[in-house]
Every structure is written in C-alpha cells, then in structure tokens.
C-alpha cells in the first residue's frame, strides 16, 4: 500500500481550501499546508498570537522575533494584514469567524471528537495552548494525521481513549490513506489512496465506514 507523505497530505488539504477563506493552521504538520495553497487563490492565514494575513518565512536577514507564528517561527505580513490583541484573536476563533482550521491529532473519533493536546500519561506535563478554542470555534475543523500509529493502531477510533480537546468538532479527517467526513452519522470515506478496498480500510481501522466515494 502506498501511503501519502506529509507533503502530499498537506497538498491535498490545500486543494480543499477555497478562495477567500480565513484559515488557521495548527502548529506542526498543518503548517506545511501553507506551502501548497494554490497561487491563484487569495487565502488569509490567521495566527493565534494576533496576526491576520500571515505570509511565508522571511529571508534570514529579515527575521523579526516580533513577527512569529503560533509555532514561534519567523513569518512575514502580507499587504492587507493586520495585528490585534489576544482577546480579538480568540474572539475570531470562538465567534466562528475562522472558516477552517487545520489541526494535528492523537486520535479522532468517528463522530468527530478530537484528542490532540494530552496523552494523559502519568507524569506528563499538560499543555493546551489554543487547541480547544480552535476546535470549538472554527466553522470547519480539518484534521491531518497518519491513519495508524507507529505500532499499528488506528487513530480513527469509535471513542477517543486520550483526553478530549473537543466534542464532535472535526468535520473532515485527512490521513495518509483516505479522507473521511465525520459527523453524528459516523465516518464516511470520501477519498482513498493507494488502492485499498473499503473492506481493507475497515479492517485496518476497526470502525464501521460508509462509502461516499465517487462512483
């Protein structure tokens, strides 16, 4: 089976972000999506630390540590961008002004529950940042992750065993082998890569799946 690379997944997510969308890319892998946004679409990236209209990384000489993304990496500001304080920034999320956020995850349930902030392991120092705010606030929550853990367990699960970030919030799940739409009705497969059959995918994940693949 051929699995998508992170870059391929990021490129696939990028295709689904429409012209004019206000988008928040979570730290880590989701940040890669920015590299694949179609050049003919104007898409506005928000950063939780008070930036709209975030542009790509600057040339090294122009690094400005007052202009960083949520992952603390230097970025730039596009023409039309704006700065604002944390109250307004999280009002953008919580108030459903952000069209799409893209997050990583430890686990996602078939009904869209998200676990991405804490393994719950004894002794782990918990840290949540803005994950819960994005999960409940964005109009659509896209998750990008490998479907399986390194030890071969499905990260798409009937019920999350890790502590939740939000309930029923993930609308679409992009993995290295398939794309799912999630909701109260469960998981619908809308795209598959690498030649798996639906039965094989169900066997891998151990969750019931419905096909909405193009005929």
């Amino acid at each position: 089976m051929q699995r998508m690379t992170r870059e391929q997944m990021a490129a696939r997510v990028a295709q689904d972000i429409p012209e004019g969308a206000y988008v928040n890319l979570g730290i880590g892998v989701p940040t890669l999506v920015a590299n694949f946004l179609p050049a003919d679409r104007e898409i506005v990236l928000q950063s939780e630390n008070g930036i709209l209209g975030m542009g790509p990384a600057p040339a090294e000489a122009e690094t400005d540590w007052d202009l960083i993304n949520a992952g603390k990496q230097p970025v730039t500001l596009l023409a039309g961008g704006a700065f604002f304080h944390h109250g307004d920034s999280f009002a953008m999320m919580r108030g459903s002004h952000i069209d799409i956020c893209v997050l990583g995850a430890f686990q996602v349930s078939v009904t869209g529950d998200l676990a991405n902030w804490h393994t719950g392991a004894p002794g782990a120092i918990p840290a949540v940042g803005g994950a819960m705010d994005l999960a409940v606030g964005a109009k659509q929550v896209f998750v990008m992750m490998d479907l399986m853990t390194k030890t071969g367990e499905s990260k798409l699960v009937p019920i999350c065993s890790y502590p939740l970030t939000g309930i029923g919030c993930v609308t679409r799940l992009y993995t290295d082998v398939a794309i799912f739409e999630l909701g109260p009705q469960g998981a619908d497969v809308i795209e598959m890569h690498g030649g798996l059959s639906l039965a094989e995918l169900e066997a891998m994940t151990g969750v019931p799946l419905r096909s909405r693949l193009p005929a």
Partner: protein
Amino acid sequence: MIDKRYESAREALHDVFDGASIMISGFGDAGVPHELVDALVDQGATDLTVISNNAGGGEIGIAALMKMKRVRKVICSFPRMAASHHFEERYRAGEVELELVPQGNLACRIQAAGAGLGAVFTPTGYGTLLSEGKETREIDGRMYVLEYPIKADFALIKGLAGDRWGNLIYRKAARNFGPIMAMAAATTIAQVSDIVELGHLDPEAIVTPGIFVKRVVRLTPAASAISA
C-alpha cells in the same frame, strides 16, 4: 482575488430579507451610516429588528423605517430623543416592541455575540426594572445579572477608510459601535469615505480587521446633519 467592494449601497444591501435583524452603528450623528440606512429604506425589507443606540429621530433613517411600519422590534439604550416622534407614535400604538438595554450591556452583549460566548454576568442593571425576571447571582460578594448575546443578520456601519479585504479605520468618536457590531453580525456592510489600496492601511492601526467585514461601499457622506 478577495474583493469585498460593492459599487453601490443598493447592491450591498440586495439580500436584506423580511424579518432580518440589523445592527446600525452611531452615537449622535457620529458613525451613523446614513447613506446605507437610506438605501435600506429604499430596499423595502420589512418586519425588521433594529439594534442601535437610538430608535431614530427626525424623518429619515431609522425614523423613516418606523414611519413606514417596517420595524417590528428595537433593541436600544436611548429611544427618547428630541425628534423621536415616529418611534413614539409606533411605541404608544403597540406597533413596535422595545427592548431597552443599558448602553454598556448593549455593548457587552454585542461583544459576547462576536466572541462566541453563551452569556455573561454583568453588574449593570441589577435591582432595576431592566433586570426584572432575569437570572441574578452573587459572585465574590457582588450581585450580577445574566445577559445573553445580541447578534444580527446584518450590521450597517461607517468607517473612514477601507480596503478590498474589508479592513477598516474610523474617524474620532464615529468609531463607537462600529467595531463591535462588525464582529456580531453574519453580514457586516461598511460604508467608507475612501477605499484605499491593499497595504495602504497601517497594520498597527487597523481597528477592524477584514475578517469581520463582508462588504465595503465607498459613499460620499452628505454634509453632516445637525445632531438632535
């Protein structure tokens, strides 16, 4: 390309529907989007809920909507003005519902809607007629009233300048309700005196980032009306 510019107030208001809730900015004459409200009068939508600091005065704007019996409900802090006779007539006739809200509660309920909060406990109005029947609670030795968000289908606001992304700056005390109403409406329509090139507005001085604005129309304000 993102382009929120509209050619005319008429086009910017094309989809205002009967029964819509509409926020209208302004305090005194400052910040009232007169030309957008004039266009709303022409547009014809009726059965409206108007959310504004006042309930209209004189013969134009909100008062004209009142006169034409197109306002079902007003949510405001100060309906009684020098020339608010059209509101008063409808109110006394029982033809318009009035929800009177202390001005700061009006502001914070609009902010709560924009920020996605479910409700807030505010101290304002506790023990008064305006909190009758509302849930109250003592928190840390002080009494508060539970108030719910006020959101709207449309907000009509007035900026000094804007750009095609919808970024806005305001002018002096004409800012008033504009920035918070912009955040609380599904469709915010801003009239501005000037539309500038993207990047022309200082990103440090933009008051309303474009994410909160759907439509921007350049309209030349008439010589300022004398405030009631």
